[in-house]
């Protein structure tokens, strides 16, 4: 899964978290989601993002697989219009 951040209309940051305006929608982002958007300024794969998120925030809770957990976050950000997905990537 390859993703890239979609620049929001506006964004404010505080202590690692952010609030963004996408269209008419205001979304508050966790520190994890904020990190994803900052990393995905160019196309990134979910494996690379998972490794970087673990390095920055530690492993996901429980026994969750980091790459699966990362994909779940990416799907949410895609649904909110904050990430675009490369549909041609495997």
């Amino acid at each position, binding site marked *: 899964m390859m993703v890239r951040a979609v620049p929001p*209309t*506006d*964004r*404010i940051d*505080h202590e690692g*978290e*952010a*609030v*963004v*305006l996408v*269209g*008419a929608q*205001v979304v*508050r982002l966790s520190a994890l989601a904020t990190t994803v958007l900052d990393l995905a300024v160019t196309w990134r794969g979910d494996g690379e993002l998972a490794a970087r998120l673990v390095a920055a925030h530690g492993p996901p809770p429980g026994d969750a697989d980091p790459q699966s957990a990362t994909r779940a976050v990416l799907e949410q950000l895609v649904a909110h219009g904050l990430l675009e997905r490369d549909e041609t990537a495997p």
Partner: protein
Amino acid sequence: MRRGRYAVDAMGVRVVTEVTGDRADEVLDRLPDLWDLCPADALPEDPPTATVEVVHDTDEATGRAADAAGQVSRRHTDDLLQVLTQRITVAAIDALAGRLHLLHAACLADPATGAAHAFVAPGGTGKTTLVRTLGPGLGYVTDETVAVADDLAIRPYPKPLSIRRAPGSLLKDETPPRALGLTAPTGPVTLRALWLLDRRDDHEGPPTTELFDPLGAVVALTQQVSHLAALDRPLRRLAALVDAVGGLRRVTYRDATDLRPLLDEGVTP
């Protein structure tokens, strides 16, 4: 067919109400008293303008056609006047889109300094009651919409108040502010404090207050802002506004009279 017009200053917008129909005078006769605190003749030259059309006629078919065409029309004059106030507010807000922060809030100002407290809240959750209870003796800025610039300057909107005909009634009557002991600010008004109203019937004791974190404040305010996306960089500007007044605080309370100490700290001389 009678015809007449009446202009008011709504947040610095010249809103002209054009009234037609054989009952037009029933509306036109009431407007000067209701809108006494919003005189259009005090507006600067060439203000933004908007028009609201009203049809008041004994012929019900004429009224229905007007309603369908987007004009204001009701069988009962009191009902019509209430809807008219709402339409004037919307017309002014639309005219100011992209120019000012438009907060859904009540606001009272120190009569001497113009320093103002804004109480942000959705409709039907205590703004008008707060103004009625605490407003006499202070500057009545608005019970509906605070139009504020980045430099904290507020454009007053001391509109008529919609008062329930009876406790629990869905019907409301437009009431002139002066009839409730309210007067407009006499000088410039500046935002000094931002509160988010949280009125609860089961709250006991004095009001409790809680400071939002900076991001939470902006998220909370965006839910009570009109035309947010029309502003350039609206989140950053809203965050700066919050920061300039020392943050947004949620105040949980039961009776509006309990909020007086909040105002006494900063608004009254």
